[in-house]
């Protein structure tokens, strides 16, 4: 596990926020997932050692909280809210549009490794439903047309970043 120096620095800092080291479990998982992309067995053992816990103590946390992933995902993570207010405003159609645009099934990553599309529960922005969280950014009132626009932008970026064929 090769963590960036700034991640290591933030890890040491965040542990000081708590009188009991174990409390830093969630913050450490977030920091490492942001750096590396997912939580491996190695990460679990590393955190356990760092916080003077047993690996099972960290493992049980990883499996409880939906935001922690055990394997890598696409470059962009599209999370569509499926809860009632969004569903009443067309959230399911929004999700279908993303799936169609990228040719993926729910919870899977597109063949080119670009995007992962998922349903998530209420994102606390029900007044501007349907809402979609893409990586860290909240997109509001995402109907099918807007979903197509967003998908086009993501595809354009992907084309730009793709290695040129020789």
């Amino acid at each position, binding site marked *: 596990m090769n963590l960036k120096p700034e991640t290591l620095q933030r890890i040491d800092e965040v542990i000081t926020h708590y009188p009991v080291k174990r409390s830093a479990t*969630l913050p450490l998982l977030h920091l490492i997932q942001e750096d590396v992309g997912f939580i491996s067995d190695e990460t679990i053992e590393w955190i356990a050692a760092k916080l003077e816990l047993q690996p099972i103590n960290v493992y049980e946390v990883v499996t409880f*909280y939906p*935001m922690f992933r055990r394997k890598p995902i696409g470059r962009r993570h599209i999370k569509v809210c499926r809860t009632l207010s969004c569903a*009443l405003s067309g959230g399911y159609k929004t999700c279908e549009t993303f799936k169609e645009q990228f040719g993926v099934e729910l919870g899977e990553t597109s063949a080119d490794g670009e995007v992962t599309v998922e349903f998530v529960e209420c994102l*606390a922005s029900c007044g501007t439903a349907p809402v979609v969280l893409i990586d*860290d950014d909240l997109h509001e009132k995402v109907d099918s047309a807007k979903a197509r626009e967003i998908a086009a932008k993501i595809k354009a970026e992907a084309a730009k970043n793709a290695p040129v064929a020789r």
Partner: protein
Amino acid sequence: MPAPEQRRIIFQHIDEPGYTNDIDCYIRNGGYEVLKKAVTRKPEEIIEEVKKSGLRGRGGAGFPCGVKWGLVDRKSGKPIYLIVNADESEPGTFKDRYIMHQDPHQLIEGTMISCFANNVKQAYIYIRGEMPHGARILEKAIAEARAKNFVGPNILGTGYSCEIFVHRGAGAYICGEETGLIESLEGKRANPRIKPPYFPAVLGLYQCPTIVNNVETLCHVKFIAEHGGAEYAKIGTPGNTGTRIFCVSGHVQRPGYYEFPAGTITMGQLLNDVCGGPLPGRNFKAVIPGGSSAKVLRFGERYKGKRKVGADMVDYDWGVEDVPMDFDSLAMIGSMGGSGGVIVMDDTVNMVEALANINAFYSHESCGQCTPCREGSLWMKKITTRMVHGDARPQDGALLKSVADQIPGRTICAFGEACSWPTQSFYLKFKDEFDGYAATKKQPKPDNALELV
């Protein structure tokens, strides 16, 4: 009667043009003046003002804030913690998001005043994992406040020191329940604790006395510290003091957040006058008044009984439109004010589908400790899912009711109630739709039907 005017106290600056979330803007608008005064007073005086104000918690249960603070064990010699519940996870609720994003210093000032009043030296803001921007905004705001000595050691030269840290959750609804939240903050699964003995006021975070308050509640505390409990109590109605923020979503013309003196507006005024009524060509069918776990109300139904007005008992006979939007009135008609999340459904909605959507949420979010909740929430979801997928059985409605009836009162935390109330009330109010489902399921869906599951 048209709706009364909004009175924005907590949302005073939300969406105000030119208002930013940095500390200079907050201070230009009078920010931190209340804290400056508060730290020169006796802490007990501030607690007294909060008691006088009648402030009820805005996180869902509506428990009086002053009473909660009064229960804190101050003799144990252990440190007292304050946790800001910024988990905002009840479907339909979205007020705390706007406070944290647009006016984070209002929350920090309210938190610091509350910490001072309760001799808290260490506070945590537990924010939903799905709000990464909110967490960053709060962290920046705390750093700004620390630089100006409103947070940290020896605040404003008074000798009083207090730190605040932001702690991010990771996508589990049960972290909103206060003891689940405490477990989560301790670095564990968010499994709620059995009460008693674990009332947070006595045995909370790290087995120390702990106060858990909602984001909005702490903003009200700031207003109370500024204007006094008696002034605050004049807003709203007796027993339901101050203002109430309603988050309206679903099938209305103008969804959004609206702040009114508590108890002064009816459901009809809120939905018709303020939110612009139903979408063109449609009619209201049902409304969930306080976050998705509150019991559903049906338009056209009447609610009858007796209620206290002053010293007298008077009869009431209300349609949904007539119900005053306060904790007590909503409780009287069998639902609740909860977190203020009002979810509106019109006549295009199939109630079995709507319940299937809700059941999918609660079955996903049960922490799994109690058998009735873990198995019951999943069972209810399985029934409603098979119903909408065309495999309804004639007895499914009655089966749903019997499963839902077995859960409440038999679980560690109130999630058991939260997951059974939707099923109980949907079946009670829309029995025909559920009981007749097996017969009608073969009919094709109209083009404008919504996919809810």
